[in-house]
């Protein structure tokens, strides 16, 4: 059967079923790793870094409570976000500043290197765990708490944590390496993705909205590595799809007042493929457009596609150019919910959301939001001219808040 033949009604996030799903931590199919982490801490296997207070208490897949820090966050940046779509990370930082939150943007941070690992397997279990623990150690030494920007880093680190808890030999080997580096061996109490932090601050954002978004429709692509890897540790909310799908992104977008529309291929990945996006993009282009963007278009006709991972924004956005050349039914702007939320509370589309790094036309969306695109672009051009003239070395935070 073709996708077109499946009768999916454009609808929101209420499940069309009388059944309700009540998660019960007692009947979770996996154990709560966090108890084991504290236990290993008590046994002197590692230092456990506690989530700084005050924190938000969110529910995960099986109804367990997860602590999400508001402040004192150490920003574990993402290669693809910082490198190719820098408005993504800039918006996360900007939202912290906008809310007056204390955060830290480190230079003592490497990539999780999982993009490379999932692309080429040129690494191994010990190396991957050592890279993770080196970064955690670096965060601990600053007194700030890791907040992970990339969905793949988050998923990979959850895998690494699972392996380290269960494999004594691995723990020993990695601890020896970290000790050799002169670093403390530290496991954070929780692994937290930035989209969980967005979930935690959604009411704060709602109270600061600058634009009415009620006439906007978004489709959400939930990132595979956020909720499929170690699936118990992702945020779910009974208000969102009856608690049957992750609430990350969707809950935030709804709080901002926009409508989230469903589509039948929501579980499909974006087509990134890790190796494919770099050297075999025929796969990525086809999958991203035929299985995601076109289906969204046909079933929900969204104004924007929102997601919470580096690879997803990249694949879904950049793949549309070639499909457009073939006359396919594409042409929907793609960005992270951090950029969308920042715009909604008044961030500049170019100074902060840096949308000029994105490919698919975002101007109609901005206009529909109520943003004067030409004026904003002219302002940004003035900034660039100042930098070129040397009267301003960089675009500073003071200039954008």
């Amino acid at each position, binding site marked *: 059967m073709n996708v077109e033949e499946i009768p999916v009604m454009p609808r929101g996030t209420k499940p069309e079923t009388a059944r309700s799903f009540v998660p019960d931590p007692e009947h979770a199919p996996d154990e709560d790793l966090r108890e084991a982490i504290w236990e290993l801490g008590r046994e002197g296997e590692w230092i456990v870094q506690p989530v700084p207070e005050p924190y938000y208490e969110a529910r995960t897949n099986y109804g367990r409570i997860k602590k999400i820090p508001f402040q004192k966050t150490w920003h574990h940046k993402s290669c693809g976000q910082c*490198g*190719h779509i820098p408005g993504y990370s800039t918006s996360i930082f900007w939202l912290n500043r906008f809310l007056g939150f204390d955060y830290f*943007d480190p230079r003592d941070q490497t990539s999780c290197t999982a993009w490379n690992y999932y692309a080429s397997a040129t690494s191994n279990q010990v190396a991957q765990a050592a890279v993770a623990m080196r970064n955690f150690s670096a965060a601990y030494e600053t007194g700030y708490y890791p907040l992970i920007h990339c969905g793949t880093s988050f998923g990979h680190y959850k895998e690494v944590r699972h392996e380290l808890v269960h494999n004594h030999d691995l723990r020993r080997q990695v601890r020896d390496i970290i000790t050799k580096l002169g670093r403390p061996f530290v496991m954070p109490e929780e692994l937290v993705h930035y989209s969980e932090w967005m979930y935690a601050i959604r009411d704060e954002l709602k109270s600061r909205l600058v634009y009415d978004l009620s006439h906007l429709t978004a489709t959400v692509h939930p990132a595979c*590595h956020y909720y499929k890897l170690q699936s118990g540790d992702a945020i779910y909310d009974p208000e969102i799809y009856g608690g049957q799908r992750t609430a990350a992104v969707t809950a935030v977008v709804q709080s901002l007042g926009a409508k989230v529309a469903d589509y039948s291929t929501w579980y499909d990945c974006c*087509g990134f493929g890790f190796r494919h996006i770099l050297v075999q993009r025929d796969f990525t282009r086809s*999958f991203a457009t035929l299985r995601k963007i076109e289906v969204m278009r046909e079933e929900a006709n969204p104004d924007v596609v929102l997601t919470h991972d580096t690879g997803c924004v990249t694949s879904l956005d*950049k793949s549309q150019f070639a499909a457009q050349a073939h006359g396919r039914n594409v042409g929907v702007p793609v960005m992270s919910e951090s950029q969308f939320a920042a715009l909604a509370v008044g961030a500049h589309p170019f100074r902060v959301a840096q949308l000029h790094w994105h490919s698919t036309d975002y101007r109609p969306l901005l206009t529909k939001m109520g943003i004067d695109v030409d004026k904003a672009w002219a302002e940004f051009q003035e900034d660039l001219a100042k930098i070129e003239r040397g009267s301003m070395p960089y675009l500073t935070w003071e200039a954008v808040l």
Partner: protein
Amino acid sequence: MLSSLYPEVPLEEKQRLFDLVKADPRFEDYLYGCYECGICVAACPSARFYDFSPRKIAQALAREDIELVYEQMNDDIWNCSQCFSCVRCPRKNNPGGLITIMREVAVNNGLKTTKEALAGYTRIIYKIMTTGTQVSPDMLQEDAFPDWGPQVKEVATHLDLWRRALPPETLHTTGLSWQVEERTMLELYTIWKLTGVLDMIRELDEGLHDIMEEVMDDALEDQGFAID
């Protein structure tokens, strides 16, 4: 039916590689048998695009079909997109994870098909292992991403200026994604060396290995970083 695609490779060699896959500490956690239900295939993006099936991967490994596993290590594993949609397996298998292990063994043992699959990718290995970030802004070049449209050229043309128009100070870079401290980089090199990852690269591409080793050794020596 036995696979006969690689008759020139002795069965002992195929068995040796299979044993290496099975010896990985994660293997037990990734495979519990297989119902042949095909749920993983229905969820798999690569199965829609290629002649590829995560069910077959789980099946072949569970049945210990040495010939077929060898064939898959050559012809299938690089098609996987490592999305892990297949972990919705009702048997709690992780076909994507099994593929990660098979890939690692393929790289470690210098399989010819692996070298071919990664031929265009090695410059990225150099980037991530020597800078600590996977991609850099200056990789956005029209000839590298012609299918991404004219916007890539816009970025390339204004790269230096546009990077300076980013408020976070750590992002004023063009050769790597964000500024990474020297000590941090040296610690990363130390990890690659201590865990045998650098040796792994030798199997894949000797020239690349030699260049990376020189870069890392020089940097470590300059800063008095000792690795024993």
